[in-house]
């Protein structure tokens, strides 16, 4: 949260948003664990490829 420079309120909004879109999932046990879903991971891979593509071509 602090590394991402987010307040708790902002973080909650983002987490709710990402959960609704199925990009992350909450696992509730003794404590709540937030994990990335397969869909989220695939999107992240696509995003990183896109960033690398943009960097290569300077766009």
């Amino acid at each position, binding site marked *: 949260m602090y590394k991402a420079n987010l307040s708790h309120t902002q973080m909650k909004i983002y987490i709710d948003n990402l959960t609704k879109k199925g990009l992350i999932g909450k696992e509730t046990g003794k404590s709540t664990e937030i994990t990335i879903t397969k869909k989220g991971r695939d999107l992240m891979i696509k995003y990183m*490829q896109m960033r690398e593509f943009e960097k*290569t071509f300077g*766009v």
Partner: protein
Amino acid sequence: MKIVLTPDWFLGKDVLIEIFSFIVLFIFCYLCFKNYKLNKNKKILYLGIGFGLIGLAELATIFTKLVLYYDNPFTQTIGDIMVSYDVVNSVDIFYHLGFFFYRLLMLLGLYAIYKMPVRKGHMEESLLTLFFIFLLSISSRDMSYLFHLATLVLLALITKNYYMIYTENASNNTRILVFAFSLLCLSNVIFIASNVEAMFVVANLIGLASYIILLVLIIRILKYGTEKKQNRHNLRHTGNNQGTRG
């Protein structure tokens, strides 16, 4: 008049090189449009259009050469039965039209790639350039060196642009890109001087090498997302393969 400079033993092989080039260009075009769908960055769209146009240029020359090389019986029959000059002339028109589209699409594609990172110019300036490209595509029919010279100038400008980008980002992939475009420049220098058939083959082979390098670049970009970054972020995902690497 000899329409293509390809030596007899190289006939067909040059088409294979062009098919390979087309596939590489098509993949680049596909990647650009896929990225554009994700981030709506218009520069990527123009880059995709550029690669797409060059790919279509390759397609135009592939079809024209296939007809030229492998449709001999039809042409022969025309010769045997002494069909009127008009028919033979129409076959000629087909070849010239095919190569005209090759030249036009190639120059347009290179211009789009060159123009992409450069700051926006005046509309009139672009229209004037497009007019000259059209004019050059027509006038270089019998003087192929003119076309290769124009291609060389555009490729040199694109290489310069990418070199400037490389000095800023110091990315290995951009360095590969600069190297691939430099090789394409070299192949065009040889094309200009390719009165000797052997030189034409050498130019084609250097062109092939540059497209192989571009394919390697595509693989590196696609691998980047699946290997390097994933480990760095130590990602986990829910599902059956939780905690594993894909």
